[in-house]
């Protein structure tokens, strides 16, 4: 066997190299060298991001265990950028005395989950997929419970790990049934072997809920707000964007590649899930006082919108999905970034504590507003374009009613996004949040996000690039 073909898994090896280097650095470096740990880590990761952002020819490794298509480069790059932004935002948090000793772990765990996602995305076999999935979710639990002195964090960690394991066991059970009915775990073979027998449908449902859990669709979403609230804000943002982004992409590829024959089954399922996810999450969101919970519900409804792209099952859907994830990443990370800065410095996360924020922190409020407008789908921000494309993809397949329901929901979502904007800009406060000073990495991260929000929509090249290779999906 020619192992040299393994070298084609460039992204993964590059990430492993970063990972291992940082682990060794953290363990063996002296006190003085550790000062530069974060800058080194960030630079390394940035280099990794830049080096791996060019798509290559499609290939397979290990007999189809690992399958690469160019689109994955984009997805992975999006995840890379997102992770980089999260790391930048976490810079200050990790420099605090209590956390300094743990920052090696933080990087290691974060990058491990990312590695898991890489494998999940590129998997060509259910075993590979499952390993990737678990690699992505188990370290995540430790990240959620990162602050070991906080009860909330511990509670969130427990909830996350229990729910995640519960979901993955159901999922594994489903995989086992698939195996039983077909005799193979390779995606390439499965595509023809899955013919729609009742057992296979059952297996599909069992398997799929595991991913629905990851994407946090209603009714598999209940863990989301609690975990988002309990976890440290930067981790929440990681969870909400990177973890979810990889899962939706995988869901789409699996539905097309593996379960293409079950399209008559999964389209109505997704239809229903999209409707209730969007609606219920929105209804929950309007009442939230804690901004992290609020964004949790918002991200659930965003996931519902993404389903509109998946449901179309077309290459246009694929392109709009990836684009949506990209835009969603910028917007959500911007919102979480502002949130984390303020929580970090003042400990305030309640909606009414944000009253009058514009008076004291005009720039942060402005970024927050852009992010929320983008999430709500208001032009000229990128969110408008991504929503439009997603709707367009669904409408192209004739799902006008679904699009209509989703659009009606945008009204509700606009309402609660405006509640935050109202708090920041309109409401007056006796003691507003004091002016906070954000450090340079956070500033960079917010600038990246803002530029993303402003420019990704207006410059069509990004979408056209994505769309150009979505046909080879």
């Amino acid at each position, binding site marked *: 066997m020619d192992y040299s073909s393994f070298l084609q898994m460039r992204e993964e090896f590059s990430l492993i190299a970063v990972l291992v280097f940082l682990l060794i650095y953290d363990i063996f470096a002296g006190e003085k060298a550790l000062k530069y740990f974060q800058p080194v880590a960030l630079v390394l990761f940035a280099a990794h991001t830049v080096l791996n952002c060019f798509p290559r020819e499609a290939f397979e490794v290990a007999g189809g265990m690992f399958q690469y298509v160019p689109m994955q480069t984009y997805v992975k790059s999006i995840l890379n950028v997102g992770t980089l932004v999260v790391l930048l935002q976490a810079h200050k948090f990790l420099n605090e005395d209590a956390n300094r000793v743990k920052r090696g772990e933080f990087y290691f765990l974060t990058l491990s989950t990312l590695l898991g996602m890489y494998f999940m995305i590129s998997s060509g076999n*259910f*075993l590979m997929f*499952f*390993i990737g999935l*678990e690699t992505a979710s*188990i*370290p995540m*639990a*430790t990240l959620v*419970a990162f602050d*070991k*002195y*906080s*009860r*909330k964090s*511990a*509670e*969130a*960690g*427990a*909830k996350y*790990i*229990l729910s995640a*394991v*519960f979901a*993955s*066991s*159901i999922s*594994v*059970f489903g*995989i*086992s*049934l698939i*195996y*039983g009915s077909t*005799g*193979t*775990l390779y995606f390439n073979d499965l595509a023809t072997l899955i013919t729609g027998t009742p057992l296979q449908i059952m297996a599909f449902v069992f398997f799929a809920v595991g991913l629905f859990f990851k994407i946090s669709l209603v009714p598999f979403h209940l863990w989301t*707000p*609690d975990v988002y*609230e*309990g976890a440290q804000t930067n981790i929440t943002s990681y969870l909400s964007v990177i973890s979810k982004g990889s899962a939706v992409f995988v869901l789409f590829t699996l539905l097309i590649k593996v379960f293409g024959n079950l399209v008559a089954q999964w389209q109505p399922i997704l239809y229903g899930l999209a409707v209730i996810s969007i609606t219920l999450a929105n209804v929950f969101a309007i009442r939230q006082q804690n901004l992290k*919970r609020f964004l949790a519900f918002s991200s659930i409804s965003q996931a519902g919108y993404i389903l509109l792209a998946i449901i179309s099952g077309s290459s246009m859907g694929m392109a709009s999905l990836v684009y949506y994830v990209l835009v969603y990443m910028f917007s959500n990370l911007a919102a979480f970034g502002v949130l984390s800065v303020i929580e970090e410095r003042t400990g305030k996360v309640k909606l009414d504590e944000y009253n009058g924020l514009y008076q004291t922190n005009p720039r942060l409020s402005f970024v927050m507003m852009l992010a929320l407008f983008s999430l709500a789908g208001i032009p000229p921000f990128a969110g408008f374009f991504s929503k439009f494309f997603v709707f367009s993809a669904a409408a192209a397949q004739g799902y006008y009613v679904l699009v209509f329901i989703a659009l009606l929901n945008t009204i509700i979502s606009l309402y609660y996004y405006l509640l935050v904007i109202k708090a920041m800009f309109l409401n007056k406060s006796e003691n507003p949040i004091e002016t906070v000073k954000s450090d340079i990495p956070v500033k960079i991260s917010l600038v990246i996000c803002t530029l993303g929000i402003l420019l990704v929509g207006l410059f069509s090249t990004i979408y056209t690039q994505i769309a150009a290779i979505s046909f080879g999906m």
Partner: protein
Amino acid sequence: MDILNNILAGQVPMELYLGVSLIMFFAGVYGFLSRRSMLMILISIELMLNAADLNFVTFNRYLFPGQLEGFYFALFTIAIAACETAVAIAIIINIYRNLSSVEVGNLDQMKE
């Protein structure tokens, strides 16, 4: 009686294994839903995962004897389950430190 004879003859039919695994799986589910202690819940999850492993192994042995995919999957699952348990136990210990209890019902600070 055929089944019993078969079993006695050392030829256990596949359905029986699958039945056991199904019972294990739902026992695990039931345990997850009803147990108070987080440790018991973890054990229930192990049951569920093991049920899946049993499925893999059974299918491999009975239906596709020429290959090893199911066995491998079971092996990997066991390993992953171990990781999960390790992390979960760590978190439960952390919970215990914070709450002096491992009752899952106490995890209700964040809701609505």
